[in-house]
């Protein structure tokens, strides 16, 4: 009988860390081999099933992914009564079952680069999603306080306009 290895870390915990001025990383371990996890990240029909949490009243209505280095992708979301929104960019590196790197080009500036790594160990796969911004300011703007505050500010503006037009 061999001694058990270190007790397994709780594999279903999602961790988020800021790993520098310009980068944030989300990690999670899945109970499946890398080729299966990789397939879920690179097959449109599968992406549609998990990318948008059910608690959000939004749907991914289209998903085109040409998963190879230099290939492009486009995800289209619909939400309530708003016009559809597109998210798009290019894959700048694709290593099957190991690594995906894509650009996020939907915003004119401050586009981040997303790197997803897949590491298999004993039939489980640890996924790390790195979001890297061109500058610390861009990370702040997309990431933390400002974007949320700005949405709110614009919402205010819209509602104020509506209120004023109603009087």
């Amino acid at each position, binding site marked *: 009988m061999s001694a058990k290895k270190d007790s397994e870390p709780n594999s*279903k915990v*999602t*961790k*988020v860390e*800021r790993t520098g001025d310009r980068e*944030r990383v*989300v990690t*999670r371990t*899945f*109970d*499946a081999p890398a080729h*299966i*996890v990789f*397939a*879920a990240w690179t097959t449109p029909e*599968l992406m549609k*099933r*998990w990318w*948008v*949490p*059910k*608690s*959000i*009243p*939004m749907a991914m209505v289209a998903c085109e992914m040409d998963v190879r280095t230099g290939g492009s992708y486009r995800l289209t*979301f619909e*939400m309530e009564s*708003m*016009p559809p*929104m597109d*998210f798009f960019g290019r894959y700048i590196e694709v290593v099957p079952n190991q690594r995906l790197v894509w650009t*996020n080009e*939907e*915003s004119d500036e401050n586009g981040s680069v997303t790197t997803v790594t897949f590491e298999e160990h004993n039939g489980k796969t640890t996924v790390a*999603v790195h979001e890297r911004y061109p500058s610390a300011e861009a990370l702040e703007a*997309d*990431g*933390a*306080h*400002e*974007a*949320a*505050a*700005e*949405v*709110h*500010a*614009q*919402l*205010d*503006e*819209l*509602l*104020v*306009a*509506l*209120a*004023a*037009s109603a*009087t």
Partner: protein
Amino acid sequence: MYAVQNHGQRNLRTNVSVCIRNHMVQYYNRLDASFGALADATRRGVLVQLAQADASISDLANTFRMTLTGMKKHVSILEDVGLITTTKVGRVRTCRLGARAFDDEAKWLESYRQLWAARFDALDSVLEELKAKDQNSERQKR
């Protein structure tokens, strides 16, 4: 006025799209609260007023012909959802239109984590299904 509306909608759309990746959860929580705050005609009036100029709570109470206590309640509801901010100088509390940023980065990171956790929980069930299919096809090969 129509033009202003369009402008607002366009900006809202741009910003919502910036937020889809990272901010869905927070955005919806706040949007809900905001709509609640806006369900009241006086509070909408206060926003319109503050869009023109900052005002003290007693100014607002006068404008809307209500008691200071009544106005304080409305102001605090609007402030809670971040539609306005207030600052107190001496005995006067001034209200202005504006969004309150998230209280701190830790809080924000936690919502960001929750978004990914929800996403990954859904991914778990997709993976279970794929694993079962994978094992079936392995068996058939043998």
